[in-house]
């Protein structure tokens, strides 16, 4: 007799929860009723992100102005504007995904004024540090300064998994019989 494995119903995607988890890690899960998981994601990822920022003397999440960085040429195409800034500060591509914790860097980038030492609202928080400050941090510090930005990037990239978990639930459906051959994406708890 052929083995007829019942097909699980397709998962309904939840883009709103995904957006909420992007803005604040774990918020989408809390809205879905997976409160403990939401809190785990929030404290773990924000803890890791701000721990990394602290290791970097609070000066490792920022975007440089495009005019202050060397020209970037990719396959004959010259990058300009924000693309040029991101090409020189690739760390921000990972840090961005932590959500609101990295938005002050965008506000500072948009409102950057070379004649001033601080930016609007956030002061010098996540503002592009002067070159002499960066040089001094790297010259006088130990490897911990470099490890700091790595922690912030890992926190941001882990939030991509959290966003997907909010969108489509966990990888495995724990409420089904585990003897089914292929584990589809699991249903969210109602």
């Amino acid at each position: 007799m052929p083995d007829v494995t019942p097909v699980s119903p397709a998962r309904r995607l939840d883009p709103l929860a995904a957006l909420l988890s992007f803005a604040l890690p774990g918020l989408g899960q809390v809205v879905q009723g997976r409160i403990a998981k939401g809190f785990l994601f929030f404290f773990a990822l924000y803890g890791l992100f701000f721990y990394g920022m602290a290791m970097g003397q609070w000066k490792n999440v920022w975007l440089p102005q495009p005019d202050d960085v060397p020209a970037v040429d990719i396959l004959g195409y010259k990058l300009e504007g924000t693309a040029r800034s991101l090409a020189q500060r690739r760390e921000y591509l990972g840090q961005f995904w932590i959500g609101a914790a990295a938005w002050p860097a965008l506000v500072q980038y948009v409102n950057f004024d070379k004649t001033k030492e601080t930016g609007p609202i956030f002061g010098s928080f996540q503002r592009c540090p002067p070159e002499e400050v960066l040089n001094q941090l790297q010259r006088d510090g130990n490897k911990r300064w470099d490890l700091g930005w790595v922690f912030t990037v890992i926190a941001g990239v882990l939030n991509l998994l959290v966003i997907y978990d909010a969108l489509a639930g966990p990888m495995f459906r724990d409420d089904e019989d585990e003897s089914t051959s292929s584990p589809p994406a699991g249903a969210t708890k109602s």
Partner: protein
Amino acid sequence: MMPFFAVSIYYDMPILLIVVALVYSATRHDRWDKILKEAGRWLWHIVLFLGGIGVVLYALSTWL
């Protein structure tokens, strides 16, 4: 001899590994028993892997 916690990697790395293992496992399961079991498994594998690399690097730096 240098105090253990004078080298920050000894307490920075465990924090990173625990967070990575827990968050990754929590995105794979919803049940807490499975999350913790998988997190423990991943943590052990990562520690073994990094420890192995550490041993190899130590051997290379000592005997080469």
